[in-house]
């Protein structure tokens, strides 16, 4: 059970780091303006 929890935490951590990198580090392919509530700000 503990091992399963470690695996899930590991997956969550990879997803979290991946999402942060994708949002803030890797260049966005999206063009145009971001005025429709999808600008990555809070």
């Amino acid at each position, binding site marked *: *059970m*503990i091992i399963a*929890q*470690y695996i*899930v*935490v590991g997956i*969550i*951590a990879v997803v*979290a*780091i991946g*999402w*942060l990198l994708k*949002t*803030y580090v890797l260049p966005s392919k999206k063009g145009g*303006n*971001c*005025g429709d*509530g999808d*600008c*990555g*700000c*809070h």
Partner: protein
Amino acid sequence: MGKAINVSLIGNPNTGKTSLFNRLTGLNQKVGNYPGITVEKKEGLCKLSRTLKAHILDLPGTYSLNTSSLDESVVVETLLNRNSKDFPDVAVVVSDIENLKRNLLLFTQIKDLEIPTILVINMADRMERKGISLDIKAMESQLQATVVLVSARKNIGIENLKDAIANYHQLNTTPCVNASSIDPVYFEKLKSTYPKQQIYKLWLVITQDVNFGKLDRNRDLEDLKKNSFKIKSEDDLKRMQHKETVVRYQFINNLLKNVLTVNAAEATDLRTRLDRILIHKVWGYLVFFAILLLIFQAIYDWSSLPMEWIDSAFAKASTLVQNSLPAGPLTDLLSQGIIPGLGGIVIFIPQIAILFLFIALLEESGYMSRVVFLMDHIMKKFGLSGKSVVPLVSGTACAIPAVMATRNIEDWKERLITILVVPFTTCSARLPVYLIIIALVIPDQRILGGLFNMQGLTLMLLYMLGFGAAIFSAWVLNKILPIKRKAFFVMEMPAYKLPMFKNVAITVIEKTKSFVLGAGKIIMAISVILWILASYGYGEQFTNAEKIVTEASINDNLTSSELSQKIASHKLEHSFIGYVGKAIEPAVRPLGYDWKIGIAIVSSFAAREVFVGTLATIYSVESDDGEEETIKNRMRAEVNPILGTPLFNFASGISLLLFYAFAMQCMSTLAIVKRETNSWKWPAIQFSFMTVIAYFSALAAYQILNNL
């Protein structure tokens, strides 16, 4: 009956164009669609004289010939295509007496197409009530056009208009604005390439692609487009178009200065009476200030109860998860990382909703435009425009839409300064930081006979500090930026109206939802990473923390709860995050912070609201005692390890508030500033000067207050 001429009725929306159409055509109307598109086409017949009738086409409402929609492109198509059966012999531009400035932009564009054009000023019956007088003769002479005053509603001036249309051969077709002055070399080349074409028509054909890619042209215009002066990029053409609008408004301003008089003292309608107070040079500011005060008091007073419920619900949820799920890292991550981190944001929903409620009410009622007008001459002194007020006020929600809202500021220098200073405004991401720190270091007392809450006043002062910093920085930038200014101010005051409940509700729900969902994602991600960094470490001190602390505390007579707290603190200090925090501690200690606050500051460089979530996660990991505790209580219990006093005291609290008031901690804003200025130079300058101001003001505040 004799021949029929084509008359196009053109005008801005809500100028009474359709009422005039109905007056002219009566029941002789036909409604259909333009071929191939679902834009309504209204046509009718009007008898002008015994021998002449008019085929009247009511074109869709448009603000200018720079189209942005299918409806508007129909207007441009009709006016550019001389082979069309609808091409007008006479263009009747309908304007409204109260919005002449805006309406005349379209008129000058149509007049420059050298089509016989009549300017109709509708709603003339309101002139007396509004204290408006107009020198028609002078206006006709400066516009080189026929001007007719009408009231479609009261059937005044309609016969004069019919006479003017009937005499269309006598109408002057000379352009009133020289559009080629925006770039004489370019226009000269255009003219020499197409000597037989009308120059302003060519310009419109070329620029319509900038505005509206699918504008369908006839073959003649397509041919022009094939050689459409590729020497200019789309951006250059947009800039030229922008310049054209500025030139037109300069012409309109000069014209109206000479022909239009508005004597507000003579006006008797409600709008004017309200305006007398709301844009008064003394009362106007007092009312604005009183409204701000009301907003900030309401943010505290109305939200305290729901905030307590939310805080306690998240604390209960953490305990529930901890107690009901099997022990292990996932349970700890949920109960110590994700739930407290999210709780740190959800708790601010009531306050953010109240802020947006007031902003939506002010915008919906028409008051916000008065604020823009009121502030213009003050803003100008600081290198800003009256229009900068909208981005600055929008900045209280989020700097990103605020930076984008600067696009309607005509002058580049004013726009750039507004972009650079907008992030000083207190955005909603700062609100959680302010609220929690204020609650910790400012007493919850009422002053001035119980009228004002100290915490509410502090929040208002912080908002004013944000505006003050923005204004002062604008003044400095205005002095040092070597950019030439070409600004003037054009704005229309909308009529006052009762805010529509539906519109206000949608604004509040959408803005709050976007704050919570957007912030939720980043906080969730950062909470997970922080929890892992705070829960794991390396080396003897971390792996043997229990043994080391137990042995060291053997003579301290600690209860089991105190001992486990001490072990958790020791582990945290030697976790991965502990090492990072210790490394940055020397830089933040002079500001009154410990390494945990240092970590929260560093993680909140991504977005400010992460600060509270980070502290909630760090303190949850540290207080590993299973007790139900709120974030505020955990922060209140923190002790400065060197001084032994509460970590969040008045000096360190004010220092933190000042740091967050000035620091540029938002990656998304930097990205949007880069996009709007098309350079990394400006966001780099912005980030540097804001961070320097933040650090040194926080340092000064802590050092002064701590040594008092």
